[in-house]
């Protein structure tokens, strides 16, 4: 027998198997790989990078102006403007390592990740049903909890790569720009808030995306449903509260706003100072998010059955 023949022959394998929870991690890595392979999404990743660099260099710029050139002036359209006046404009953007800095940053980045997730839902989950990949997963020594955990973990990894991780970088940068010996201790609440906001986005978006992708399976209907949830509901909420003067609780139909309110609460920031118009209480927003999460989980529990393995 030649070495090539030996290579082509079947060989037994002996080794230790790991617990099913490790399978969820493998699924999450595969999900992330699938999302990174779509060239279409790279335009959105570039936009996310742009937002990050805006905040990163914005924080640096604000500190630099304060320290170096606050009393100088520069000509703008022929008019000398004191650089210190620029700070008033930049103050509105909250590029100062405060809770609102991180809240705003995650708001923008979260939008990008939501758009990507709406387009990637069919790839990550819908295909398992549409192309019959579910038997591939459920015929393995895992149950549907591990399957769901793997999918949600994959979504969570992606969301956190776009929101929590860069927000943490901004947090550490702010500490270095200001007084690092006091900043990190005085702003521990922001650190916890960033992590909690990331966890909130991971759980809520993960469950919601999995449920909608299992329901509609294909990309276009999925995008339409998410556009309805995050754009139309938002417009309707604003119309009812700001236009028709309804109770501010009508704004709770805007799920993205609910996530933001709870996120700001985690960060220790007052939403009233940041959001225009009356806002519902953070605990009310949290109740809505929990209800949506529970509904999604209940739907998934009924839909993903092991018996679908052999069709």
């Amino acid at each position, binding site marked *: 027998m030649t070495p090539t023949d030996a*290579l*082509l*022959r*079947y*060989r*037994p*394998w*002996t*080794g*230790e*198997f*790991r*617990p*099913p929870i*490790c*399978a969820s991690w*493998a*699924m999450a890595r*595969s999900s992330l*790989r*699938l999302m990174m*392979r779509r060239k279409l999404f790279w335009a959105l990743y570039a936009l996310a990078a742009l937002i990050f660099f805006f905040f990163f260099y914005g924080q640096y710029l604000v500190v630099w102006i304060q320290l170096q050139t606050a009393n100088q002036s520069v000509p703008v359209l022929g008019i000398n403007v004191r650089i210190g006046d620029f700070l008033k404009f930049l103050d509105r953007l909250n590029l100062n390592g405060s809770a609102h800095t991180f809240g705003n940053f995650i708001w923008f980045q979260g939008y990008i990740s939501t758009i990507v997730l709406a387009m990637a839902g069919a*790839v990550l989950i819908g*295909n398992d049903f549409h*192309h*019959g*990949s*579910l*038997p*591939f*997963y*459920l*015929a*393995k*020594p*895992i*149950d549907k909890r591990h399957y769901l955990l793997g999918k949600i973990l994959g979504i969570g990894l992606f969301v956190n790569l776009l929101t929590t991780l860069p927000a943490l970088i901004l947090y550490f940068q702010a500490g270095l720009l200001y007084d690092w010996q006091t900043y990190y201790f005085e702003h521990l609440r922001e650190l916890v808030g960033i992590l909690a906001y990331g966890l909130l986005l991971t759980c809520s978006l993960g469950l919601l995306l999995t449920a909608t992708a299992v329901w509609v399976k294909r990309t276009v209907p999925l995008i339409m449903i998410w556009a309805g949830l995050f754009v139309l509901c938002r417009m309707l909420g604003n119309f009812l509260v700001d236009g028709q003067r309804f109770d501010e609780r009508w704004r709770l139909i805007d799920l993205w706003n609910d996530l933001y309110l709870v996120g700001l609460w985690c960060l220790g920031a007052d939403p009233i100072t940041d959001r225009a118009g009356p806002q519902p209480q953070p605990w009310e927003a949290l109740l809505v998010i929990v209800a949506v999460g529970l509904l999604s989980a209940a739907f998934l529990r009924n839909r993903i059955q*092991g*018996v679908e*393995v*052999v*069709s």
Partner: protein
Amino acid sequence: MFLCLDSLTRTFGSFTALHDVTLRLEPGRIGLLGPNGAGKSTLLKILMGLLPPTSGSGTVLGLDLRTGGNELRRRIGFMPEADALVPGLTGLEYVTLAGELYGMPRRQAQRRSHEVLSYVALDEARFRKVEDYSLGMKQRVKLAQALVHDPAALLLDEPTSGLDPAGRDVMLNLIRELGRDHGKTIVLSTHLLADVQAVCDQVVVVAGGHVRSQGTTATMCTSRSDRWRVKVQGEPTRFLADLTAGGATVIAADGRGEFRIAVPQPWSNRRFFQLAEANAVTLRSIVRDDESVEEFFLRTVNAA
């Protein structure tokens, strides 16, 4: 003992998919035959521990069907009939993911994936995306993902479905070799009887939720002493009339002088020669008319 089922019943509401199934199967290459709706899929789900039986009990590879769960699926490799691919992954990544889902450490899953992909002759295509594979390659990569953790048993659901003759031969050879040379227990669920005949040494026929018949392929496709294929040269009309008068029955004629004849017992083949001589015809051949798996299957299902 590979499989041991005792009075196994599975109902879905008022519909009974499996009725009181009692089955004992030794390790080997087992064909699971049955028409659509026979209960094959339900039986496979129960064997994989995905569906609990409504009543009755059983073990697969010594593990209880009700409590075996994940451990049962770890010892079994399943090749589904559906595409079951993950679009966007390469063949290597797909098989590696399967290995990790079975619980293999990542590095070992990768190494093993290279091996099994070479074994199923996909080594040159392993870095291509699975959705770009031909149908035959898709079937082989599905076999590779079922083999990656070196299971004791393989459940194969229609493994040759949609393959061309060459691809089918390759797949059947792989399956036969896995069972014969590497000691895997194979359960081949199919409606292609020729596949069962080519690969399996045991057959279970399921119809209407009942196990209609079970045994070795050799025993079930039995050499029957009451049926013969007789080839005649000359005008056969009077010869056949005399045979019929003597209690024999002409089952079929191929139009080229060959007849399938059922004879009464006891019977001596000398009688064929006597009647041929009397009717001036020449016997070109007399061979025993063994029953094929196909005939056996049809007979069994029709009887049900």
